[in-house]
């Protein structure tokens, strides 16, 4: 496959895809519009202060983990040697967005770099 053939195949396949999107049925379009409205309704109810929404849950989870670790030491069991155990505690206590942490770390790092100058 030479360069010209590749470009032509790219162009034709993209055009076919675009045409199929344009020809989408009204019922699907309506359901997607409803989905969009449902998502935006959530924004309306929650506002933009989502970071604080996790704080109570994060604090409660941190307390449970801390209590578990304390009991473990009180019972004479060896303390967790793995630093990851404490990193987990930090994450929970930090009230971070759990879904965000589910994404890959490199992606999170990239997103952090995209913050425009003047913020932070």
């Amino acid at each position, binding site marked *: 496959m030479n360069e010209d053939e590749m470009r032509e195949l790219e162009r034709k396949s993209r055009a*076919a*895809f675009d045409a199929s999107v344009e020809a989408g049925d009204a019922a699907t379009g309506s359901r997607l519009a409803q989905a969009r409205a449902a998502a*935006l309704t*959530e*924004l309306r109810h929650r506002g933009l*202060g*989502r970071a604080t929404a996790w704080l109570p849950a994060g604090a409660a989870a941190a307390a449970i983990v801390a209590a578990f670790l304390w009991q473990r030491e009180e019972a004479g069991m060896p303390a967790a040697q793995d630093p990851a155990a404490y990193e987990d505690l930090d994450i929970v206590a930090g009230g971070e967005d759990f*879904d965000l942490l589910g994404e890959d770390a490199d992606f999170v790092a990239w997103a952090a770099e995209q913050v425009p100058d003047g913020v932070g």
Partner: protein
Amino acid sequence: MEDEPVIRSATLDGPLSLGRPGAAREETLDRERALDRFLAGIARRAHRIASIALRDRTEAEDAVQDAMIRLVRHYAQRPEDQWRPLFYRILRNRITDLQRRAGVRRAVMAFWSGGTADEPARDPLEDVADARGRPDETLEGEELLARIEAVLATLSRRQREAFLFRNFEGLDVAQAALAMGCSEGSVKTHYFRAMQALHGALGEWQP
């Protein structure tokens, strides 16, 4: 008119407006309008891409709705130019989840029916109308897309994703890499292999 004082936060949550009642509400409304435009513009394309990946239009609707909600819930405050790769990252993860669940369902069904989950699937290319009866014509429109979808179903997940994101959605290499969670070099390799496979399967009908 003098600008209202604005304190920039040290987080990714964006600026915090102080000293003006209703400023937060206005900010939310602005974001809501921007998100509405973004989601309206991306919904049909995302649904079509999810349909091709999942080969199920209903599951594709669920995946897109879930991606919309997650984007709004967790990333509304991010700069707008991040929304598209973020949205496709979420959608891709949702598609992967659904595919895994479908695999488990197949395994359970196979167990109860006495078969195996590893039984070879039907070749998707067999389900596509054959254009060989018209050798002087090239594939166009729906026929070409049906053939492409059938070929995509035979590719690896990574190759399929690279093609869907790069060609159909038009993400650049960097955005596709972020949406797929891999390196840019990997995107280029998978995309080229997908194009080779498509060319091999469709080549005789191309000009």
